[in-house]
C-alpha cells in the first residue's frame, strides 16, 4: 500500500473520531431545554438532582449512547451487506431483518396487545432472526450456494412478504396502526439505558464478527472463483457475515425501530475515502454511521423546537442531498 494512501486513511480516521466526539458533546448539550455548558458539566461530574441534571443524565446521555451504538451497528452492517451481495442497492434491511422485526412487533401489538418499547425489543429480535435465517436458507438453496443475486432476491421476496403481512394486520386493526406508525419512523428518543443494555451484547458480538469477516469479504469481492482459489471458505465466510449483519441490524432495529438510509448510504460515503478495502471500510462505516446519526438527531431537536423530528426523517431529508452531491462529484468505487 502506498504510504500516502495509508496516511490519508489514518488522518481520515482521526478526523472521524474527532467529529464523533464533537457530535457527542453537541448531542448532550443541545436540546429543547436550554442548558448552559457549565450546567452540563455540573450534571456529568457532580449531579445534585437539579432538573437540569436529571434531563442530562436520564434523557440525553442514554439517548446519545444509544445513538452511537446504533449508528455503528447500522454503518458496519450496511458495509458488510453490500460486500456480501455486491449490490450497491442492498441496504442491511434487504436480508429481511427490518421487515421481519416489524412483523413480529405488529404481531405482538395485534395478538398480545403489547405496547411497551422494552417488550418490543425481544419480539423485534425474534422476527429479525427468523426472517434473516429464512432468507439465508432460501438464498443458498440453489446449486451454487448463496450467491449475491439469490441472496438479494430472496431478501427482497421475504421483505415484501413480511411487509404485506404487516400492512394486512395494520389495516385490519386501528389500534395496531396507531402504535405501529410511531414505531415505524425510527427514533432514538424515549429509550432508556435499559434498552441499550438489552441489545448491547448482541451489537458487541456482531461487531467482533464483522471485523473478523473483513478479510473474507475482501476476497469475495474478487469474485467467488478467485476467492475459492485463494483458499477462502466461501460458505463459512458468508455464514459469519450474515450472522454479524443479523446481530447488528437486528439489535439496531429492536432498539430504535427501522432507521433506513443510514446503512445504505454510509458505506458508499466511506468507500469514497477508503477505497474498497473492507478492513478499513468497516471501521470507517461504523464511525461515520455513529457521527451521522448523532448529527441528524441533534438537528431534529433544533429545527422543530420545542418539538422534535425523528432521527430517521432528519437523516434522509438532510443526509440525502449531501449524499447526492458526493455521488455526483466523486469517481465512485464500484462494487
Amino acid at each position, binding site marked *: 500500500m502506498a504510504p500516502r494512501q495509508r496516511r490519508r486513511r489514518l488522518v481520515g480516521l482521526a478526523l472521524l473520531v474527532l467529529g464523533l466526539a464533537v457530535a457527542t458533546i453537541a448531542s448532550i448539550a443541545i436540546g429543547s431545554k436550554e442548558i448552559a455548558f457549565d450546567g452540563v458539566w455540573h450534571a456529568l461530574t457532580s449531579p445534585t438532582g437539579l432538573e437540569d441534571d436529571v434531563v442530562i443524565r436520564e434523557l440525553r446521555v442514554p439517548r446519545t449512547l444509544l445513538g452511537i451504538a446504533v449508528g455503528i451497528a447500522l454503518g458496519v452492517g450496511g458495509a458488510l451487506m453490500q460486500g456480501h451481495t455486491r449490490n*450497491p442497492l442492498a441496504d442491511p434491511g434487504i436480508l429481511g431483518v427490518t421487515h421481519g422485526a416489524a412483523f413480529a412487533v405488529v404481531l405482538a401489538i395485534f395478538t398480545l396487545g403489547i405496547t411497551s418499547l422494552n417488550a418490543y425489543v425481544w419480539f423485534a429480535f425474534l422476527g429479525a432472526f427468523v426472517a434473516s435465517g429464512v432468507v439465508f436458507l432460501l438464498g443458498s438453496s440453489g446449486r451454487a450456494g448463496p450467491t449475491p*443475486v439469490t441472496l*438479494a432476491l430472496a431478501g427482497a421476496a421475504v421483505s*415484501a412478504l413480511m411487509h404485506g403481512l404487516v400492512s394486512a394486520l395494520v389495516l385490519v386493526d386501528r389500534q395496531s396502526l396507531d402504535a405501529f406508525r410511531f414505531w415505524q419512523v425510527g427514533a432514538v428518543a424515549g429509550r432508556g439505558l435499559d434498552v441499550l443494555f438489552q441489545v448491547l451484547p448482541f451489537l458487541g458480538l456482531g461487531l467482533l464478527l464483522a471485523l473478523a469477516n473483513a478479510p473474507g469479504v475482501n476476497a469475495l469481492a474478487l469474485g467467488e472463483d478467485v476467492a475459492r482459489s485463494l483458499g477462502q471458505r466461501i460458505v463459512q465466510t458468508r455464514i459469519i457475515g450474515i450472522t454479524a449483519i443479523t446481530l447488528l441490524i437486528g439489535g439496531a432495529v429492536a432498539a430504535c425501530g427501522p432507521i433506513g438510509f443510514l446503512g445504505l*448510504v454510509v458505506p458508499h460515503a466511506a468507500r469514497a475515502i477508503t477505497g474498497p478495502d473492507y478492513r478499513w471500510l468497516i471501521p470507517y462505516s461504523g464511525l461515520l454511521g455513529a457521527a451521522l446519526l448523532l448529527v441528524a438527531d441533534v438537528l431534529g431537536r433544533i429545527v422543530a423546537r420545542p418539538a422534535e423530528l425523528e432521527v430517521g426523517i432528519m437523516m434522509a431529508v438532510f443526509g440525502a442531498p449531501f449524499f447526492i452531491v458526493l455521488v455526483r462529484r466523486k469517481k465512485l468505487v464500484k462494487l
Partner: protein
Amino acid sequence: MSVVGARRGVRIGPFSWPVRWRPLLLVVVGSALLVLVMAVNIGLGDFPITLGQVFDVLLGGGETRHQFIVLDLRLPRSLTAVFVGAALALAGAIFQSIARNPLASPDILGVTWGASVGAVSVITFTGALTGSVAEVGIPLAALGGGFFFGLLVYVLAWRKGIEGFRMVLVGVGIAAIAGNLTTYLLTVGDVTDAGRAMVWITGSLNGRGWEHVVPVGIALAVLMPAAFVCAHLLGALQFGDDTVRGLGVRLNGARSVLLLIGIALASVATAASGPIAFVALAAPQVAVRLAATATPPLLGSAVVGGLLVVGSDLIARTAFGGFEMPVGVVTAVLGAPYLMYLLIRGRREARV
C-alpha cells in the same frame, strides 16, 4: 448456454429475428390465463355471474342487467388491474435492465415514493374533504409527485451522460427523502387519515372506474410500443458501457429514452391505483426465469405483471369475507412465495 447460431430465425423482408419458444409460450399461456382470471374476477361478487354469461357480455351480447354490472362496474376495475400491473412490470423490466440490477425498480428510483408524497399530502392536509377533491386531487398529486421525483433522479444523475451505477445511487437518495417525507406525513394527521393514507400507499383498486382505465390505457398504448421499439437497445445495455458503445449504440440517448418511458409508465400506473407493492420488482424476475432469457423479456414481464395484479385483486376481493383487502397486500403475499419457489428451483442463475 445455448449457441445463438443454432437457433432458427424468421425472416420477413428486411427484418429477421431468432425464434425463442419459451418467451413466446410465456406470453401465449400467460395471456390466456389473464383473460380467464379476469373473467372469473368479473363473475364473482355480491351478484354472481357465470363465466359463460361474462364472455357473452364481453362479446357484445348478454342480458341488460348483466351488461350493466359487467361493463360499468366490474370490467373497469379488472382492466385497471391488468393495465397497472403491466405498466409497473414493464417499468420494472426497463429499470432492471438499464441498471443491470435485479433490485432496481420504480420504488428504489424515487417514482413510487414521490407519488406517495403527493397523494399522502393531499389525504393528510385535506383530510376532512372527500368527494371530488379526493377523487381528482389524489391521482393528480400522485402523478405530479411521481414525475417530479423521477425526473429529479434523472436530472441529478446526469453528468456528461447517464451512468447506471450513479443513477441507482442518486435514486436511493431521492427515494429516501420521499419515503421519509411520507412516513412523516403519516404521523402528522389523525389516525383516520393515516388509515386512508396507508390504504393508498399499499395500493388499492377499490372503486376504480373507466376514468382510471383510460389514462393508464392510453399511456400503455403509447409507451409500450415505444418500449418494444427500444427493446433491442435494452438487449445491448445489459453489457458494460464500453461494449455498448462498441456495438454502436448511442448510450446516453438510449438510456434517456428508456428511462423516461419507465418513469412515465410507473407514474401513471401509481396514480391510478397507488404503488402496488412488489409487482415491478417481482414480475420481471419471475418472467426472466420462466422464459429463461438473459434479461427480463418486456412483453412477458407485462403479462406476468398483469396476471399478478388481477389475480391478487380476485383474492383481495373475495377471500376475506365481507372485508376487502387493498390489493397491494395480496400481491406481496402471493408474489413473494412464487419468486422464492423459482429461486429454490433455479438451477442456472440468470444474472441481470
